[in-house]
């Protein structure tokens, strides 16, 4: 946050400082220039004033000279005056003189007046004020020069001459503007304003020419002109300052402002960049801290003992899982023990010998890069041992130099015990299975041996009784024989069921001609069916499927024989149909049927729909259980539907080829 703030305040402060400095420097330069202008003005004004003073002096001398000339004349007539003054007026040096005048009295006492001018002023100059006329008509006594500053800005200079016969005065009217122009030669027009005031009478100053503007730099001097005082003021006009003023300070100001802008820009960019870098550093630092924290947490909370050590075997890390596994405290172990100390010495010696290295650290680091090593034994602080799996990895720096090793140790005693238990359980199960198989084989053998005698003798005796025509004995002996055969079937069925349940039946699939199979079933079962007064109907289409013919025959025989037993004087149908994927065999009877409840239980061993009918209908009670087991073994299904009193239907569906 502070950094963000600084990112824009630093450039701002730099900018303000730059502007302030620029303005300050500009002001200093401006002041210096102002002073320069003032001193230049002073010098210029002095020059101008001197020039005006000189003009006045020149005019003074000219008038004096004219006065002297007339003073020396016996008489003055107009033509002479004109001739003389015209020459003066034509002189470039007397441009300031506008007109020459003569006023006097001749020897007859007649007043004389005449004038000569460069222009066309003529007699108008005599339209003067009372004072002027008085001065002219009554020239003062003595040789003197005086001036008058009449209201329209013209300065008169009087000269007085005296002779025996003549008295009179000469005057020259000066062109003040011409004086100003001459004085201002070399200056821009209007850059200096000049004003002339008659201050002979201090209390009544009379403006002769020009006006003084307000402001500016006034400079004045009072000139003594022919007994009068003229104050000349010079004021610099706007043009003067403009003409003297240089672009220097402004250029400096602009240059400094531009420099300020550039500096501020640079500082701003630098600050932004610094802020961005700082932010990046902060983020990275946070990430690194998180990662470090996470790594620390992983090491601390891992269920595996994590031990790291340097190439010399000095332990660097010993996590809590390692503490509880080995009974050592981390602070005692780190820096003070070698991982060799955790190994059962004889076990380490054995492994070292296998690896062809000296017993010690070399054997442990030799495991690096070989994954989980099982079969190692660790030794706790109390001397007890435990089997472990040991995974060692080399830790490398950027230059691929090994800086240490990481050992991850897992107590596998529980796992080994579980594995041992599992092995034991498996061998027990296998042993049990072997015992069961042997038992079944022995059972079968031992039951068949006495049955052989029973069946053999009873059949033999029945034959004897028949030969002797002892019908009663023959019937009884046949019953013994039948009971024996039933017992034999039971034994065979129990064996079949046991073999299926033990997973010992191996199917032998081969091509099976369906119609021939159906015929074989019919031939076998027909005597049984007909003995109950039933009609056996078979129906099949030509087809060949791949199946185990022995087992399939057994399934169908069981179903049809079952139907025959539970049906009296009815019909039994065996029907086969095949499509591309499955063969469907249906056995339908018109027998006693079953309830829904019985249907569910009928495939369980030793269950018949009506518990009491077992003895009446024969069969072992295992036929349907075996049929279903075999059908499912062949990848098919055996289902039944029935209506009590009107018959049952069993349906076998098997794939036309084993899946």
């Amino acid at each position, binding site marked *: 946050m502070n950094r963000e703030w600084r990112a824009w305040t630093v450039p701002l402060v730099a900018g303000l400082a730059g502007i302030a400095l620029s303005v300050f420097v500009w002001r200093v330069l401006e002041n210096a220039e102002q002073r320069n202008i003032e001193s230049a003005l002073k010098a210029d004004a002095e020059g101008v004033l001197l020039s005006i003073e000189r003009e006045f002096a020149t005019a003074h001398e000219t008038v004096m000279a004219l006065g002297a000339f007339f003073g020396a004349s016996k008489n003055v007539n107009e033509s002479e005056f004109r001739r003389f003054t015209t020459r003066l007026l034509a002189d470039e040096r007397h441009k300031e003189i506008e007109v020459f005048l003569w006023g006097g009295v001749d020897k007859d006492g007649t007043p004389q007046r005449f004038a000569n001018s460069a222009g066309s002023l003529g007699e108008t100059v005599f339209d003067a004020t009372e004072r002027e006329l008085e001065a002219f008509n009554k020239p003062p006594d003595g040789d003197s020069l005086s001036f008058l500053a009449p209201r329209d800005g013209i300065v008169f200079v009087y000269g007085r001459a005296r002779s025996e016969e003549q008295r009179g005065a000469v005057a020259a009217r000066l062109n003040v503007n011409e004086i100003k122009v001459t004085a201002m030669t070399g200056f821009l027009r209007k850059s200096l304003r000049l004003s002339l005031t008659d201050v002979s009478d201090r209390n009544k100053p009379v403006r002769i020419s020009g006006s003084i503007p307000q402001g500016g730099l006034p400079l004045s001097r009072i000139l003594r002109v022919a007994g009068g005082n003229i104050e000349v003021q010079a004021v610099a006009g706007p043009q003067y300052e403009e003409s003297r003023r240089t672009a220097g300070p402004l250029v400096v100001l602009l240059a400094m402002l531009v420099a300020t802008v550039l500096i501020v820009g640079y500082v701003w960019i630098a600050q932004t960049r610094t802020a961005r870098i700082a932010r990046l550093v902060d983020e990275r630092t946070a990430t690194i801290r998180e990662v470090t924290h996470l790594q620390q947490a992983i090491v601390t909370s891992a269920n595996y003992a994590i031990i790291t050590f340097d190439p010399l075997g000095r332990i660097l890390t010993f996590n809590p899982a390692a503490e509880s596994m080995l009974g050592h405290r981390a602070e005692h172990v780190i820096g003070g023990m070698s991982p060799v100390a955790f190994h059962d010495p004889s076990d380490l010696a054995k492994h070292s010998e296998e690896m062809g290295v000296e017993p010690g650290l070399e054997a442990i680091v030799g495991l690096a890069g070989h994954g989980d090593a099982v079969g190692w034994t660790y030794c706790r602080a109390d001397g007890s041992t435990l089997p472990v799996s040991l995974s060692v990895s080399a830790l490398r720096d950027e230059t691929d130099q090994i800086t240490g090793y990481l050992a991850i140790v897992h107590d596998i005693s529980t796992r080994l015990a579980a594995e041992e238990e599992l092995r034991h359980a498996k061998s027990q199960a296998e042993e049990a299975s072997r015992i069961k198989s042997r038992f079944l084989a022995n059972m079968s053998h031992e039951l*068949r041996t006495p049955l*052989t005698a029973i069946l*053999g003798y009873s059949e033999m005796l029945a034959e004897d009784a028949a030969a002797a025509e002892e019908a009663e004995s023959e019937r009884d002996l046949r019953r013994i024989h039948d009971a024996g055969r039933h017992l034999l079937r039971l034994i065979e069925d129990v064996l079949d069921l046991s*073999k299926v349940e033990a997973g010992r039946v191996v199917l032998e699939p081969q091509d099976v001609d369906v119609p021939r199979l159906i015929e074989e079933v019919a031939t076998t079962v027909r005597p049984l069916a007909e003995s109950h007064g039933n009609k056996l109907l078979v129906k099949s289409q030509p087809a060949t499927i791949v199946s185990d013919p022995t087992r399939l025959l057994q399934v169908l025989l069981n179903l049809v024989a079952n139907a025959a037993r539970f049906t009296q004087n009815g019909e039994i149908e065996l029907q086969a149909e095949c499509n591309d994927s499955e063969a469907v065999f249906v056995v339908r009877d018109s027998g006693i049927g079953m309830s829904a409840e019985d249907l569910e239980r009928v495939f369980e061993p030793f269950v018949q729909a009506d518990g009491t009918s077992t003895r009446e209908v024969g069969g072992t009670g295992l036929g349907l259980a075996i049929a279903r087991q075999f059908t499912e073994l062949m990848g098919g299904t055996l289902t039944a539907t029935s209506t009590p009193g009107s018959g049952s239907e069993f349906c076998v569906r098997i794939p036309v080829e084993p899946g």
Partner: protein
Amino acid sequence: MIRILLVEDNDMNRDMLGRRLRRLGYDVDEATDGIEALDAASRGPDLVLMDLSLPKLDGWEVTRRLKSDDATRGIPIIALTAHVMAGDRERAMEAGCDDFETKPVQFARLRGKIEALVG
């Protein structure tokens, strides 16, 4: 007359089988164990009905010996056994038996097999 050597360790079954074979018109010699069976076979029966579980020397071994002896190799042997588990028939045929019949005996079928071998 066809001479049959009946090898059977169970007295009842030997008696029953012997009597029924004789009734069918065969001349029956009897042996109760493997050693007797080898001895009786040396007298040259036309056919041997061989129980496989026998004392002293079992039926498989007796069969192997008879079939490896030039003097007795030609005598057909029918295994007659209560061992009916998977593989039992194969083991009997491997030992050298010419046919295989299970106990309890279906007499009509056994007679057919005898006739097929010596008739």
